[in-house]
């Protein structure tokens, strides 16, 4: 144990920060490859484009931290985009009210998944698959399959230069807010704790189900807002918005080093993960790489951080495992009924004590 404390632990540094390192390398390489990459216009475009995916990834991070998964984010984006377009164009609501309603509907859809998962005991994958299908279907029904053009002077305010690109600063504020929630609030801690050991948390007096539900609601609300952002950028509400975005969001969270088993993950790493995916797309567009090869490269990038982490961690793991064995329970009762019945405990008894909170 003592020798690992000597000096700077570069291995640990690499493991903890590999997302940022990859992002930095990517920026450097991109800047070398393309003169246009670091121009104001391109940077602004990247930020406007990635604002939505970043928010979706953060929402998904909270679901994943609590040990769940949300496949519905892409579809809820479409719902957000089309709903805000309809409310502005057909209903004639002010764009801010429309955005508010769209976000609330996204929240409601997330909540629907959350209730199914937390209270009906349906697996997150299945529940959100259903929500995903319903939300996408609803977006198509609402728009009758046609993109809805939104009049200028409304939702495009979100991308206007006069207001300093609200999408960008809104996203920035939300990142900070969720960074704080994740690290400095009891809510964030409980979400992480649920993903770590829900049974223990419940026995510590936390009604875990409502927290599980809340993560899906949060993810739904952020996804709807991301859909609104897409609508604002194109001044169009289309039911095809966010196709496949759930996979990009999962990729961003994974690149950010989160565990899909829950209990571990960080907001800034997830943001970096989303930016990495966005940058890869951007630089390859600038280099005029066709879109199919882009996907191949994206796929490779997804696997780099977890692989590098695994390769670096493995020796450390082996070490801790051997230490763990050395300190495993050695002093059991000398003579006791438990010993008399040691073998009984391996049958029904233990399992039936643990299952009710499963």
């Amino acid at each position, binding site marked *: 144990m003592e020798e690992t404390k000597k000096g700077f632990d570069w291995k640990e540094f690499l493991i903890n920060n590999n997302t940022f390192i990859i992002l930095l390398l990517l920026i450097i390489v991109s800047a070398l490859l393309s003169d246009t990459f670091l121009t104001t216009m391109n940077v602004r475009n990247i930020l406007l484009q990635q604002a939505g995916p970043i928010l979706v990834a953060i929402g998904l991070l909270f679901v994943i931290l609590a040990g769940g998964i949300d496949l519905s984010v892409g579809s809820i984006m479409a719902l957000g985009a089309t709903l805000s377009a309809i409310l502005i164009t057909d209903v004639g609501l002010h764009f801010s009210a429309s955005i508010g309603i769209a976000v609330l509907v996204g929240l409601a859809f997330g909540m629907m998944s959350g209730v199914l998962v937390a209270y009906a005991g349906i697996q997150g994958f299945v529940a959100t698959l259903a929500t995903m299908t319903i939300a996408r279907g609803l977006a198509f029904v609402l728009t009758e399959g046609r993109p809805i053009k939104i009049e200028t002077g409304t939702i495009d305010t979100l991308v206007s230069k006069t207001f300093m690109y609200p999408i960008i600063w809104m996203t920035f504020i939300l990142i900070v807010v969720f960074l704080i929630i994740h690290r400095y609030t009891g809510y964030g801690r409980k979400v992480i704790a649920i993903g770590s050991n829900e049974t*223990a948390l419940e026995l510590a*007096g936390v009604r875990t189900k409502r927290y599980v539900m809340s993560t899906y609601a949060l993810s739904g609300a952020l996804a709807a807002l991301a859909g609104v952002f897409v609508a604002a950028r194109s001044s169009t509400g289309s039911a095809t918005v966010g196709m496949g975005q759930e996979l990009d969001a999962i990729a961003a969270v994974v690149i950010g080093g989160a565990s899909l088993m829950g209990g*571990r993950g960080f907001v800034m790493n997830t943001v970096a993960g989303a930016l990495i995916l966005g940058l890869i797309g951007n630089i390859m567009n600038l280099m005029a790489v066709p879109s199919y090869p882009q996907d191949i490269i994206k796929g490779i990038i997804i696997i780099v951080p977890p692989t590098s982490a695994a390769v670096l961690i493995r020796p450390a793991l082996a070490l801790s495992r051997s230490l763990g064995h050395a300190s495993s329970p050695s002093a059991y009762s000398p003579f*006791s*009924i438990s010993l008399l*019945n040691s073998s009984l405990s391996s049958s029904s008894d233990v399992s039936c004590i643990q299952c009710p909170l499963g």
Partner: protein
Amino acid sequence: MLVFDEPTAVLTHSETEKLLELIRKLKEDGVTILYISHRLEELFAISDRITVLKDGKYVDTVDTSSITKEELVTMMVGRKIEQLFPERHAEIGEEILRVENLSTADLVENVSFSLRKGEVLGFSGLVGSGRTETMRAIFGADRKTSGKVWLFGEEVNIKNPKQAIELGIGFLPEDRKTQGLLLKQSIRINTTLVSRQGNGFINHRKEQQEVRSLLAQIATKYGSTEDNANSLSGGNQQKVSLAKWLAIDTKLIILDEPTRGVDVGAKTEIYRIINELAERGVGVIMISSEMPEIIGTCDRVIVMREGRITGEVTKENLTENNLIKLAMGV
């Protein structure tokens, strides 16, 4: 020669019968059988001689025909209680908890008992006798199908652990790894798991100080409050798991096998904590399968068997013999 080590542990009654029949046949064919079991009936059913081992030491070998079940039990338990149980100066006060006719769906049947202020009440019995299930039902972790619970003379209907904790009940689960700790989270988070119920802001530095002083009180050895719980030894893990209940003001604490899998040093420390709690007027319920421990720590012991209370043993009559008889229904 053939050795059987607890062969019937996972067998049903009829399967056991078949196995014993098979062993008798093998014996007739001239095979020597070494049969290890905690089920005394089986030993009497098939053996010619019985050897008793205790604490890894040989006690005696006797002819099966020359000994009764009770004599065998006495041979198995005849030991002094070690001096690892510190003395307690607690005043036993008024009744804190009263449970009447508690039943659960799967196991517990008509369990009634009461607990007084400053009292340490033991629950003895075989593994699977329903002790944990009883306590989980009281704590609101499992549903009870019938029965009433009074806390400080007031009837309460506890539906979940959160309510139980708000009423001042603490519960240390038997398996710290799956129920007590978040192994992959920091010692700090684990220690404040119960005391920090709010969703608001957390002051990390203040929390660290709280955790440090709390863990120092119970002599916990750890590196940093930010280390993961699984970096600790078993005994220190258990101390952290227990510390989260010491961080709040419990009036009644249920300890389910509090010393399972911990070293002797940590055990003594846990006994000391139990005494301290009782001296402060906390009512303590301790489930334990370790006879010396339950005799050394408890004022009174309730024995359960197959989901029912089979008896209650007061301090004066607290012997392993008495407990085992009640636990096994001899």
